[in-house]
């Protein structure tokens, strides 16, 4: 026990004293917080300053929507609806004059409606800056004018046909109490998911690094003479786990402070306040998820000969952690649906998925408890299996890594 504590204290102290740890734990959130703080201050005090950096250079087209020309060879455009500001769309008889006007900068771009528009519906939009993205956006007005003229100038009918429904949606079994239109409904669970993913992965990689490094420089051989492999593993896992928790606490704290300081109208409505139990479950799932992935990483660390191969081998281990990230939009849209429930109960994907669900909706208590129990059992099993394979024989052999060896070793057959 004493040995375990020594290892734990050593790992914890060396990790948090390392410059790179301090940078990622404090510097990184601080820099991004400052960045957003600066951005929001700049945005409030002088919006022009921001646009001058992000907007197009003056003298180039595409800044604001200016006057545009059109050449109607099909004869469809008879009237320009009154709601279009005068001078916004200027008619030209042929493309030559329109091109001249463009050259003289009287117009910023022009449309060409070909004579066979009725047959194939093509509209040509000539812009000096080309940008298709802005073009699709800005061409809406001209397309509307064409539609209105197709309907004989009846702009009310054109509007109604374009958007025939002002829909009032009533859900009999709404998935959550939240307003579906609010962007936070998506971004709050999304942020929580990313946070958990990064935290678990990062603290688990710390363990992998520490084992591979000691293996590479052969400190491990000396350590083995005075400490049992299991004590070593337990000490490392707890020590680095505490380091991970410290990091998590700092991140969450800085994030909170930044949101307050930034003055970003942080008036979360009641539906978005995460309850205290969320923090508690977060702690449980982080600790269990970390134990699971850290010991998996440790098993990789025990089998690979050097750090370079380690980073390739971890790929196999983290695949299940990535799956919830890929399915995230579905989990958030339907947090109590079949896919979300399965992923949050399956131990390897549970730590991340369950936190997404908890942030997105209220999860039945039995599911959270069941997921935690399943995860705890799996973690315990993996930690045991890894501790068993954490023997001098596997640790010291210089064989290359292969997934087959990993699974054999986990099953206790190596």
């Amino acid at each position, binding site marked *: 026990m004493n040995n375990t504590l020594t290892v734990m204290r050593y790992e914890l102290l060396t990790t948090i004293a390392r410059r790179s740890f301090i940078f990622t734990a404090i510097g990184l959130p601080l820099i991004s917080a400052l960045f957003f703080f600066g951005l929001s201050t700049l945005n409030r005090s002088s919006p022009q300053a921001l646009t001058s*950096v992000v907007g197009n250079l003056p003298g180039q087209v595409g800044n604001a929507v200016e006057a545009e020309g059109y050449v109607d060879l099909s004869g469809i455009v008879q009237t320009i609806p009154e709601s279009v500001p005068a001078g916004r769309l200027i008619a030209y008889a042929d493309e030559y004059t329109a091109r001249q006007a463009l050259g003289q900068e009287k117009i910023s771009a022009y449309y060409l409606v070909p004579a066979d528009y009725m047959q194939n519906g093509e509209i040509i939009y000539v812009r000096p800056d080309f940008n298709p993205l802005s073009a*699709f956006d800005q061409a809406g007005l001209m397309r509307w004018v064409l539609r209105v003229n197709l309907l004989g100038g009846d702009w009310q009918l054109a509007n109604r046909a374009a958007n025939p*429904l002002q829909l009032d949606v009533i*859900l009999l079994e709404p998935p959550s109490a939240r307003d579906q239109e609010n962007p936070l409904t998506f971004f709050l669970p999304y942020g929580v998911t990313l946070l958990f993913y990064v935290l678990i992965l990062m603290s688990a990689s710390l363990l992998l690094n520490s084992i591979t490094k000691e293996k590479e420089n052969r400190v491990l051989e000396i350590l083995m003479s005075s400490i049992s492999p299991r004590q070593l593993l337990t000490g490392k896992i707890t020590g680095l786990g505490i380091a991970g928790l410290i990091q998590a606490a700092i991140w969450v704290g800085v994030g909170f402070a930044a949101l307050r300081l930034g003055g970003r109208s942080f008036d979360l409505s009641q539906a978005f306040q995460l309850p205290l139990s969320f923090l508690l479950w977060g702690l449980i799932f982080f600790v269990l998820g970390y134990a699971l992935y850290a010991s998996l990483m440790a098993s990789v660390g025990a089998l690979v000969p050097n750090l370079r191969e380690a980073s390739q081998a971890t790929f196999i281990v983290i695949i299940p952690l990535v799956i919830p990230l890929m399915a995230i939009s579905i989990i958030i849209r*339907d947090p109590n649906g079949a896919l979300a429930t399965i992923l949050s109960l399956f131990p390897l994907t549970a730590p991340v998925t369950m936190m997404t669900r908890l942030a997105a909706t209220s999860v039945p208590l039995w599911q959270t408890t069941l997921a935690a129990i399943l995860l705890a059992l799996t973690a315990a099993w993996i930690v045991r299996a890894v501790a068993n394979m954490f023997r001098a024989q596997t640790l010291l052999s210089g064989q290359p890594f292969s997934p087959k060896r990993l699974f054999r070793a986990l099953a206790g057959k190596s």
Partner: protein
Amino acid sequence: MVKFWRVFHYEFSRHVLRRGFLFGLLSVPLIILFMAGVIMIIERSERDSRPIGYVDQSGLLAEPLPAAAARDSLTIKLVAYTDEELAKTALEAGELQAYFVLGADYLQTSQARAVAMKRISAAAEDEFKDLLRAHLLASQPSEVLARLNQGDMLLVRSADGSREVNEGQWVSILLPFFIGIAFMIAIFSSSGYLMQAVVDEKENRTMEVLLTSTSPNTLIGAKTVAMISVGMTQLLAWFVFAAIALVIGSRYFPIIQTIQIPPGMLAISLAAFLPCLVTTSALMVMIGSSVTDAREGQQMTGLITLPAALPYWFAIVLMTNPNSPLSIALSFFPLTAPVAITMRLAFGMIPPAQLAANLVFLWVCAIGALWLAGRAFRIGMLSYGKRLSLGEILGRPQKQEAQP
């Protein structure tokens, strides 16, 4: 020169013939395929083919549609109900995915109500909108109706006529984004290998033995060229994969046939890619020579890979305002240039003079970085087990020529 090729051959074959390299090479296309597969499966499982119901109190939908307005086969069936209670019962029984109620004043207000269990799918809403649209426009001449139903197609053309893209070609519009990513991955994986190659041999002291029989310049030059070749091999392999996928895919998905890559754009992107690859590789050699072990080296590379992600943070600026000062700055900065230039080219026109200045500047940076890297390498050889600071690399020149 013989030694140069020997080192080159050793480094190149050591990386390319490794299983890990093949794995990395295949993993990117495989991950893309896998993700596409997952998304398709999820999309399919989400699809709800149950009919939707409607209750019409406005009388709009009562009249039958003229033949010209009749629509093609529907993906979702529409069922009319005379009474909302009946529709509600059907909805609760799971026979309907949703139902819509048009009030008596619909024609004045366009207000309507939709009732569903959990959520209302966009497909269901679109289907019902199509029905309403068909009825609203039922009295129009068939020619007008056909045009309105098919919609129009916008073709964007640059003023000099050299570039053209239409709305249906959204894959081509997004393609530069992926080309930029491929460039970035190739740059960082090959320069990462290079750093490892320098640091490993420094750590296990092979370097000292090697330098007894070859000059530092030959050694580092050959290593750099080898790793750049590894990067190019990787890139080439991906382009071949992509080409094969496109050829096969175009048989099944017609949208792929609309993809066009303007050759000029690709050439300019490649021209920007090369100096950036050289710059990044040189910076990695510099890091590799100034740190003492592999782990420290990996941490330091974070300083280089972090700014490389900037174009993706500011992707929206690059796409909507390709000529903003920020976009221009990103395309001049060597670590972000390949992505920034590719995206600016795709979403706008870069003035030729600016483009030329940009490329020249990138090459100047590349040469400067190479010079620094060579110096760092030579000084690093002498100060063993000690980290080099940037000041040392820049500051103390000729006194420390590392001729073993």
